[in-house]
């Protein structure tokens, strides 16, 4: 098919995503706050789709939060990343898949810098050799973990047990997508749909039966802002940003929010709790909060994974309203079950009531 007409117009919004042999690097935030999501990603890739995914035990943080907290110099961050690339090269992989948008943004920034300033890449190679003795090849393909799920969204739909449809009304669930700033705002050509028409999550929602909601502050930052959350004195900024989004999306009656970043779901989840504590206000329906999910959690739910295997019990804003709307089978009594000896539960079991 010739690259002309509409195909040509939209080609700059497309992105090449490798289809196998992935070198996977984890997210600091996701491992702490959404560990079940990374477990689900690997389970989907390996067990459901039969892909080759490798994780090197010696990979580390990319230092991205330190970089954007301005305590880690760019040269240091570039060399830390170069070491990650070296581990990939040594393991014989070429397709690099980070589980984090901050990392993904940093990788795109670094590769772009090296493209425009080859002397910088040369210096980083020298730094890495001096510090670790390692050498590296840059990735042949760089895709965020959500890009990979997006690529296989139809395969996931074909194996799905559930759809994002309200079982009582038959209507598609109304879903807010939150892309995360560093996915495509810095380097639009590196994200599916670019900065103007980001489609990475919308594509999943539509394929899995839901309806994407457009609302005025759809592209607004969740409010992480690095130092604006990391330091307690600044957290008013963070909650104010999330509040602006909630106020903007509420009139459109969303059933759920699906997120791309590691941090965004945590903020959109926790700040609902905080706003409710401060103002007694809820943004969902029937006096409830709006459940917030990672894309791996939604993919896992659609495929019929147990909600508590996905780690949904770690959310502060309860997810049950969405599970009930879809008709997902789950055991309420197993929600906080840990093992035969530990029967603890959170102090306030239900914050949405």
């Amino acid at each position, binding site marked *: 098919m010739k690259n002309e007409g509409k195909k040509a117009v939209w080609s700059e919004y497309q992105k090449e995503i490798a289809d196998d042999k992935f070198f996977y690097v984890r997210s600091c935030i996701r*491992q702490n706050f959404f560990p079940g999501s990374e477990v689900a990603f690997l389970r989907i890739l390996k067990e459901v789709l039969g892909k080759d995914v490798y994780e090197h035990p010696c990979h580390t943080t990319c230092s991205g939060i330190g970089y954007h907290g301005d305590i880690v110099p760019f040269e240091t961050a570039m060399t*830390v990343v170069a070491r990650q690339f070296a581990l990939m090269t040594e393991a014989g992989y070429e397709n690099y898949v980070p589980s984090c948008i901050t990392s993904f943004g940093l990788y795109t920034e670094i590769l772009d810098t090296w493209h425009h300033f080859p002397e910088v890449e040369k210096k980083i190679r020298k730094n890495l050799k001096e510090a670790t003795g390692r050498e590296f090849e840059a990735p042949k393909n760089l895709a965020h973990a959500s890009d990979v799920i997006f690529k296989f969204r139809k395969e996931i739909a074909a194996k799905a047990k559930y759809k994002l449809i309200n079982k009582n009304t038959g209507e598609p669930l109304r879903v807010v997508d939150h892309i995360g700033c560093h996915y495509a705002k810095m380097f639009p050509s590196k994200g599916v749909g670019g900065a103007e028409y980001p489609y990475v999550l919308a594509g999943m929602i539509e394929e899995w039966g839901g309806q994407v909601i457009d609302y005025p502050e759809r592209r607004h*930052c969740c409010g992480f802002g690095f130092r604006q959350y990391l330091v307690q004195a600044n957290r008013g900024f963070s909650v104010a940003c999330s509040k602006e989004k909630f106020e903007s999306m509420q009139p459109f009656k969303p059933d759920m929010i699906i997120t791309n970043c590691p941090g965004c779901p945590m903020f959109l989840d926790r700040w609902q709790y905080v706003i409710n504590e401060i103002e007694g206000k809820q943004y969902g329906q029937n006096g409830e909060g709006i459940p917030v999910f990672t894309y791996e959690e939604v993919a896992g739910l659609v495929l019929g994974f147990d909600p508590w295997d996905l780690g949904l019990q770690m959310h502060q804003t309860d997810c049950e309203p969405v599970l009930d709307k879809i008709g997902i089978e789950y055991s309420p009594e197993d929600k906080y079950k840990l093992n035969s000896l530990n029967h603890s539960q959170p102090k306030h079991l239900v914050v949405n009531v």
Partner: protein
Amino acid sequence: MDNLFDKLMEDIRFEEGLNACMNCGVCTAICPAAEFYSYDPRKIVDIVQSRNNELIEDLLKSEQIWYCGECMSCKTRCPRGNAPGLIIMALRGLSQDLGYFTESEKGRQQLAIKRTIGESILNTGYCVYIDGISPEFHPEQGPTWEWVHENRVDLIERLGGNYKGDGPGILRKIPQETLDELKKIFEVTGGLERYEKIESYSKKKAAEMNLDFDEGIDNEYFSHIYKTNNGSHTR
């Protein structure tokens, strides 16, 4: 006195982030920080491109440069291809190199970020690790996080993680040899020098402010910079 514009130009992000700004203000219109703080990225870019040494020095000592959240929404929207967010990053780097960051309440917070995120990177191999995300410092995380934090060993195991374990997996222990490599990278590339500068300038400021200064997070100066908000930053 150093020419501060020339020093900024040594930062590749500054070179990338500043072309000729026409002062249209689109960056300010899209900026989440400008909605919340008394902050105007357009003015910052205008001051910087004026090359006025005194004004740039004032900027490096100001609260202004610490309001940005580095979301980079400005980069997408600038019709001239500038990136005020990258300019901010260069200004923050220079402010720390010269010790000017301790002149502002928001700037002084860099020690808190160094002591939490910065030390976590070198000590654990993670920017954040669950043990350090205490409910005491994070009340906004809510009661569910209290439960998660208290039961992290069992919960991470329940979800298929590898808490402090060997080999790959979620929250695995990063081997000491790897941490040694990270530290060496920081040493070779100026990362440790940045950390040391943040510490030494902060210590000096703590003495000026008559606040106790010690290692870690349990001391008067850390508590002050982590929690103080004089209320004059917002619109």
